[in-house]
């Protein structure tokens, strides 16, 4: 027998919900597949609600609101319309198809229309077949946290802490938030107050930027300790502290489903030379999704993969791409979802093999670190060479094989993303490439290379007033150099910085409107 479609409906209190009532009052029948959730306004419906609904197995989601012009809250419904468009794009990318999401205007007097919409939608969903995704069970925390933590302590040298305070004197967060001190977390763990470590927000406050690791004379690797503890930490708190309502991670989890066929290649420009298989594989990462999720920021993120392909083609490389590439799993690894991280890693590696790749190039520092370092650790054997685009290009600069056509005179300041810099020690390649662009002058911020500070947010966790301080601090520092352009290799840096424009009350545009460019985009711009 065929499974009956399940529809989750979010109906606004004043129109659609009333319409649904009317349908009942008027004894108009409609299929029983629908489960109605009442919201005060369709504007309240967060894309995250929808994504989560699909992630947990809903076959369709219906959003009902008032007709344009009749919104009880003036314009809530228009807001909803915009969001639904955006969400549809995500559904397209992830391969569920936009059709499973439906927005309808239903007034209090349109009982009939409501019944009709439900009936039609149920039919369509029947035709589409069931949503491949199913609700997944929550992961169990390890039983013996005490032991797990003491193992983590040994693994990350936490026992060597001398309480000198160098970590908190370095930590960008501690500087703005006295409540947070890496060494306090350390001391608690050492004196056997594990519970308080796991239940508190400290674990989620750490940016894992490795600045303390870089400087700790006792070689205490705090971020790694934090990472090791997070799987045991309170999941509720994690959800609560996660920015953008966890959409990115939800999407990543969805990709795990074998039946999911993503439609993520839309960005690929005409005439780009790529292949399905090949020695060098370009690992794109989640940029297509970010492009949609952070649409409003106008960061033109798709330019990044486009530029990378252009550059590769220009230097005579025809990269292999994965049409159904999975998330590298970085955020899961760093937020304690080890189970799914491992699954993603395995799937990606399988795909790499299938594509007969031996070398993997990426333009994203997180992907870079995750593939190069963490995959190897988790999977044991990982025999692929992982390159950051800047490494690849600087080699070419050395060989004199990197040719630029269009030089442009710009003062550029380069920001070292934590993952590329301190995590992986890649400081010079991007600089070498940038300075090799005709006309480009490279400036340095006071805190650069090992001493660079984080853009302000990591893994979309704990985005708050403190991370805001950090982000502004970094932007101010960049501005102070007098550069025209702030260049980074990490799309997330740009996202986190640009996100400041949405802050209320608005932040001095002087600071936040600094022109930014992704490394690859900058390079590509200098090529024909």
């Amino acid at each position, binding site marked *: 027998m065929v499974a009956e479609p399940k529809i989750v409906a979010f109906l606004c209190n004043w129109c659609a919900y009333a319409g649904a009532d009317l349908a009942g009052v008027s004894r108009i029948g409609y299929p029983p597949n629908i489960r109605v959730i009442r919201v005060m306004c369709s504007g309240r419906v967060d894309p995250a609600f929808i994504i989560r609904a699909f992630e947990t197995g809903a076959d369709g989601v219906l959003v009902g609101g008032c007709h344009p012009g009749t919104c009880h809250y003036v314009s809530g419904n228009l807001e909803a319309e915009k969001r639904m468009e955006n969400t549809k794009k995500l559904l397209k990318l992830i391969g569920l198809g936009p059709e499973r999401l439906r927005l309808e205007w239903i007034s209090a007097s349109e009982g009939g229309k409501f019944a009709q919409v439900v009936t039609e939608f149920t039919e369509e969903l029947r035709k589409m077949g069931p949503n491949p995704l199913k609700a997944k069970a929550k992961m169990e925390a390890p039983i013996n946290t005490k032991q797990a933590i*003491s193992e983590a302590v040994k693994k990350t040298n936490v*026992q*060597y802490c001398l*309480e000198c305070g160098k970590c908190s004197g370095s930590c960008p967060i501690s500087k703005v938030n006295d409540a947070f*001190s890496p*060494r*306090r977390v350390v*001391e*608690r763990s*050492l*004196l056997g107050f594990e519970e308080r470590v796991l239940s508190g927000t400290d674990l989620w406050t750490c940016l894992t930027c490795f600045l303390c690791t870089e400087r700790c004379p006792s070689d205490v690797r705090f971020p790694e300790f934090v990472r090791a503890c997070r799987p045991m930490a309170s999941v509720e708190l994690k959800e609560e502290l996660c920015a953008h309502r966890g959409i990115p991670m939800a999407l990543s989890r969805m990709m795990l489903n074998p039946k999911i066929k993503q439609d993520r290649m839309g960005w690929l420009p005409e005439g780009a030379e790529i292949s399905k298989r090949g020695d060098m594989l370009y690992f794109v990462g989640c940029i297509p999704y970010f492009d949609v999720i952070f649409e409003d920021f106008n960061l033109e993120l798709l330019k990044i993969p486009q530029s990378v392909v252009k550059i590769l083609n220009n230097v005579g490389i025809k990269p292999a791409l994965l049409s159904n590439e999975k998330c590298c799993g970085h955020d899961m690894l760093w937020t304690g979802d080890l189970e799914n991280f491992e699954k993603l890693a395995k799937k990606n590696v399988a795909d790499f093999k299938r594509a007969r790749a031996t070398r993997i190039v990426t333009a994203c520092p997180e992907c870079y670190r995750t593939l190069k370092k963490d995959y190897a650790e988790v999977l044991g054997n990982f025999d692929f060479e992982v390159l950051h685009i800047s490494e690849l290009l600087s080699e070419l600069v050395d060989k004199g094989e990197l040719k630029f056509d269009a030089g442009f005179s710009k003062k550029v300041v380069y920001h070292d993303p934590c993952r590329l810099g301190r995590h992986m020690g890649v400081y010079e390649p991007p600089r070498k490439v940038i300075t090799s662009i005709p006309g480009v002058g490279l400036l340095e911020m006071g805190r650069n290379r090992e001493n660079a500070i984080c853009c302000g947010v990591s893994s979309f966790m704990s985005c708050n007033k403190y991370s805001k301080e950090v982000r502004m601090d970094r932007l101010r520092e960049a501005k102070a150099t007098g550069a025209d352009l702030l260049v980074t290799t990490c799309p997330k840096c740009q996202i986190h910085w640009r996100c400041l424009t949405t802050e209320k009350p608005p932040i001095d545009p002087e600071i936040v409107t600094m022109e930014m460019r992704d490394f690859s985009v900058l390079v590509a711009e200098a090529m024909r």
Partner: protein
Amino acid sequence: MESKEEAPRIGVFICHCGINIGGVVNVPEVVEYSKTLLGVVYAEDNLYTCSSEGISKIKEGIAKHNLNRVIVASCTPRTHEPLFRAACEEAGVNKYLFEMANIRDQCSWAHMHEPEKATEKAKDLVRMAVAKARLLKPLEEPEIDVAPSALIVGGGVSSMTAALCLANQGFKVHIVEREPELGGMLRHLHKLYPSMEDASQGLSQIVNSVNSNKSIDVLTSTVVKEVKGFIGNFEVTVERMNGETTNFGVGTIIVATGAANFEPVGMYGYGEYDNVITQLQLEQLLKNGRLEKPEKVVMIQCVGAREEKGRTYCSRICCMTALKNAMHIKELSPDTDVYILFRDLQTYGTHHEDWHRRAQDKGIKFIKYVLEKPPQVAQREDGKITINVYHALLGEEVKISSDLLVLSTPLIPQEGAKELSQLLKVPVGPDGFFFEAHVKLRPIDFATDGIYVCGTAHSPKDVAESVSQAFGVASRAAIPMAVKRLRVEAITATVDESVCSGCGTCVKLCPYGAIQKDEKGVAKVTSVVCKGCGTCAASCPERAITMRHFTDEQVRAQALAALGRVYA
């Protein structure tokens, strides 16, 4: 060289000592001033008169202006007189025709904020020196023999190390130990850091080689009763427990009496609860294997040390002792939780830091406490000790209930240190430990020639450090004994027979018995024995005694010069 006849030709050399003097005192002004003084034929200033450049300047000056008196106005004669005297001698001026004006230690440094007044004072000090110099007379230093034997007071590891080293150099050694057996503090210790070997093992080796060494004469259960004489010729009287006394002579004396352990009665429940003990007592338990496998052990550092008042010093060894014993406990029972409550962990140098890291590996728990908020200690009904310690970092009290509380207490001066210091006429410092001649460059000498100090009698230190010092004194003491003959003080008293009435007052009051009445019934001074204190001269009813280099005339001249009056 006879300078009585010829008129004084005085040269004055005034030192800037970099900016130590020059930064406060107007040196050029003082130079000009000294040129105006009676008898001064030459004056100059130097950046550092003690530099080899300065020294050659003095020599040049003597030659060029054929000076027969030299004055250096710089630092204190206590450290620099020998150097300048030597320079004079090399230039053919008897070294007792040299005089110093202390315009740094007792002027520029002490009056840093009053440059004018300091300059005035400097002038006076130079004037005083000149006044004395005019009356100086050349003197010769008699030579004496040095007995090739040493007395070592104390019988611990420092003492025995020094003894063996001296014996190997061919000297006779007498060890006087008041305890019935040799060994000192080492007898009470279990293991020794950093090597963690048994204290008894190394100790027995040393004791054996000491006992089997023919050149070393060991007197246990014996104390020093009296010491007379001077370097090269000390007369020692020792007394055994049974009251019988022995005398013998030695050339040098080494103080190696060690230190005692502080008993923290009334602190943290010590003496009140039986499971509150000192590290030393813990060593005993470990030594005799009498420590059960406790669930928790807590150690508190700086108990009775580094106090605001009283015992303000750091005892140096307690932190490592605690680490050592903590590690030992962990070896005996890995499941025991060991806490060390400390202020600043004194893990200096290489080995100590090593052990610190190992202790961290072993999971020993370190809690920093602050002097303002010391741990609170109480005993529970079940006998466990509860320790409440304010944890500054966590900003809260941490409560530990422990089976055993171990107090790390400092080493304190050996009882009888003060008596010995008076017996030998050597000082003890404010902390009660023996006080060396110069903290920096004479760390194991006393100001008194021929007497030396080593080991924990000098200040708290561990075995390796004590042994280093012990070898050190073995060298210092060997020097005069190796050269066999010494030149001694020329600054001695002399009696004017024509004036002496033979009243014998001086004979009675001389602490060295350096004055005897001769057959003519007048007083006579044995100058090698005379130490030159001058008490006799100041007391002679007939004022018949002249104290060389500090004659009535010279002193009076200085005094008058100080008052701006000319000596008539």
